[in-house]
């Protein structure tokens, strides 16, 4: 493998890994803030326990999301320096905005939240977690605006003199039509993921024989998680549908690649499953819905969907001579089996997640008898639930990024022109091995610690200290929280 291949793999591995923690952070920060607000408003000790219990799980998860995010910011310059030179004028701004407007907010107020027990007024304390949540959502907005530029470059011009793309309209970059459908899709998916984690953890406790008097607490947490998962998953479906239509318009190759559709076709079908190499030689679709691909792409069952071959020919004619747009390796076609299967896995896992949320809501309904609250299948539902949206997220990103290939910025620069010219394959290989080993080790530590705190349960949390305000004035009392 050369430096280019290694750099691509490195970006793929580190991004997919980073994005396991990101949606949990976004989703859970809102839920923890919600529990915290409920505690402040009602002083119901159950809400206090849920706040601290899920807050601890949130922090364990946040730490890894944070550190793997730093790697991402540095990676553009380290592995993709020619990309950074070419689009830095446009792409750098959202990243700088993200750091200045959101990273400071998240990190400062999370520090206040973690150490704030007994040290700041309780309403303000609950507000700090809401600020963390707002920070995560705004952060997602900026980084997705940067990504949307790569999918559909807008608000720029190519400057012959400086030999790079330059920003002409920042508002256009922030309101890119791809961004306007991608941001709600990613955020609802994040809520779905956070909701599923809360739902699963609470269900698992509800299923334990020793749950006893804590059952109502876990039940309400499970239902909160399930409602969020359900509502968010409906949002994911609606925004995903909108996204499909924008994608078909701006990146026809990606939609064709999602189905493995090689020639233009009206009333194009969508196959649920298929067998075979997906190279266009023969179509062996197992279950096929006529016209569905046309509907996904254009909102009409009869519309014509562009195929891979005509789009490829168009690209070759238009771009193969360009300085930044030549493509020596892929003939302007993404890896079709990858796009085909990740598209289905994304949707399939998402639908399973939705179904689990529905089942959980039914199983925890008011009328359900106590013993019905803990049927056997819950254990499995609990274990499986978070993995559905989590892996759906991963497959969604793999689909949308692989589907963009060979472009790093659609129709503007191919990936092969973007890699750092003087960084050797050995350097990229070394960093790849180090990241992979380190990330793997940290994943083991993180999951173990996460599960340890899941097992401890909310019941391990001591009663809320009603004299917290008094304690604040007692200069000699031990801190409520210390490292």
């Amino acid at each position, binding site marked *: 493998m050369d430096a280019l291949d290694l750099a691509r793999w490195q970006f793929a591995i580190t991004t997919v890994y980073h994005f396991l923690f990101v949606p949990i952070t976004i989703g859970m920060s809102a839920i923890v803030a919600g529990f915290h607000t409920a505690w402040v408003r009602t002083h119901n000790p159950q809400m206090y326990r849920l706040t601290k219990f899920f807050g601890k799980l949130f922090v364990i998860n946040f730490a890894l999301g944070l*550190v793997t995010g730093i790697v991402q910011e540095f990676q553009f*310059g380290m592995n993709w320096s020619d990309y950074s030179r070419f689009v830095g004028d446009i792409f750098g701004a959202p990243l700088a905005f993200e750091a200045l407007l959101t990273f400071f907010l998240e990190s400062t107020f999370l520090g206040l939240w973690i150490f704030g027990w007994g040290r700041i007024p309780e309403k303000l304390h609950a507000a700090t977690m809401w600020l963390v949540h707002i920070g995560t959502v705004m952060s997602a907005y900026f980084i997705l605006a940067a990504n949307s530029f790569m999918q559909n470059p807008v608000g720029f011009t190519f400057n012959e003199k400086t030999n790079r793309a330059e920003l002409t309209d920042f508002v256009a970059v922030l309101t890119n039509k791809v961004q306007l459908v991608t941001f709600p899709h990613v955020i609802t998916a994040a809520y779905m993921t956070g909701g599923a984690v809360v739902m699963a953890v609470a269900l698992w406790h509800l299923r334990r024989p020793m749950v006893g008097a804590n059952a109502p607490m876990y039940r309400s947490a499970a239902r909160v998680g399930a409602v969020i998962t359900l509502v968010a998953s409906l949002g994911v479906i609606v925004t995903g549908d909108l996204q499909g239509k924008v994608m078909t318009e701006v990146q026809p190759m990606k939609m064709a690649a999602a189905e493995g559709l090689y020639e233009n076709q009206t009333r194009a079908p969508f196959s649920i499953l298929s067998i075979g190499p997906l190279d266009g030689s023969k179509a062996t679709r197992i279950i096929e819905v006529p016209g569905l691909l046309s509907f996904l792409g254009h909102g009409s069952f009869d519309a014509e969907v562009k195929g891979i071959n005509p789009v490829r020919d168009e690209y070759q004619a238009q771009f193969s001579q360009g300085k930044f747009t030549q493509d020596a390796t892929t003939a302007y076609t993404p890896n079709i089996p990858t796009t085909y299967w990740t598209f289905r896995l994304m949707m399939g896992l998402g639908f399973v997640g939705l179904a689990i949320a529905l089942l959980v809501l039914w199983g925890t309904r008011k009328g359900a008898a106590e013993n019905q609250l803990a049927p056997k299948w819950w254990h499995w539902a609990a274990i499986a639930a978070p993995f559905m949206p989590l892996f759906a997220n991963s497959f969604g990103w793999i689909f949308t990024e692989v589907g963009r290939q060979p472009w790093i910025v659609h129709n503007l620069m191919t990936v092969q022109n973007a890699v750092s010219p003087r960084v050797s394959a050995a350097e990229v290989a070394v960093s790849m091995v180090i990241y992979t080993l380190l990330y793997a080790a940290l994943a083991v530590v993180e999951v173990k610690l996460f599960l340890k705190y899941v097992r401890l349960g909310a019941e391990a949390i001591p009663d809320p200290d009603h004299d917290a305000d008094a304690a604040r004035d007692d200069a000699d009392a031990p801190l409520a929280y210390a490292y």
Partner: protein
Amino acid sequence: MSYELLQNLWFLLIAVLWIGYFCLEGFDMGVGMLIGLIGKDKNGDPQETERRKRLMLTTIGPHWDGNEVWLLTAGGATFAAFPHWYATLFAGFYLPLLLILVALILRAMGLEYRGKGDSDTWRRNWDIAIMVGSFLPALLWGVAFANIVNGVPMTGSAPALEYAGTPVLSLLNPLGLIGGLTTLFLFLTHGALFVALKTDGQIRHDARAFALKAGLVTAVCAVIFLGWTNVNTGTALSWALTVLAAVCLLAALAAVKVARDGWAFTGTFVCTALAVASLFVALFPDVMPNSIAGGQPLTIANASSSQYTLQIMTGAAVVFVPIVLGYQIWTYWVFRRRLTTRHIPAAAHY
């Protein structure tokens, strides 16, 4: 504002971001390194040692993450305002940056995870992660800045210049090493003074005693490093800033002598700011001088973004930098109380 003025303004703002990073993360890296030194109880009581370590980590607990964002913002702002600087620097200093990243990862995980496990092995391993993870950036940032300011070999035609030295080894020249030692000892001193400022009891005295020793080593290293750099590329202003930085450091050590922790910490804080400012003044108007004779440098003018991008960024900076400063200062106010080992609660999960 004219294009040239905007470019210079962003050079200044990036200097400010690095100053913020070194002044703030400087002390939390120092505290991270010192848990194995100042953290040790002199009587060898393992429980007291553990309380001292936790006390030290708790003083930086609410702040270290916010401090680190100054680095991320410096990185993001360099990307946005000087894409060629970002590209040349990050691709060129590949392996040192990799080491810094690994260190920052281990350090952050250590700070957040150390107290969440039960066994001595768990805590000892994360102690190592925190100490090594604080040590490496404290050393390597000095190495990196010594090389940036004094120039590295670069080939290609400006602004698409590429670092042409041997990976790592070219950076470990004598000046780079003395730069690394300077930041290392400066942050050790700065961290010890933060402990002295934020704690009470025996640990406060130990921190002062350490700061005094480390401060003297810092003074020697800094004089060699900044003097050498100023001889290479300095101006009257960078010399003046260097002298003022030295004065602040000596004033800080004098303040330690008379047990004025607040003044002492302010002294190393201002010293750090002035020393970084002196480096940026020496760097101006280049952003990366070329050490190859006759080679083109990367300059503020040729490395920058377009005027429009700089205008947008300026608007954001004018509005948000004061807001960020406001709430960060407020967190220091919230957690202003001095702590002692008595304040450290018994180890508990919640």
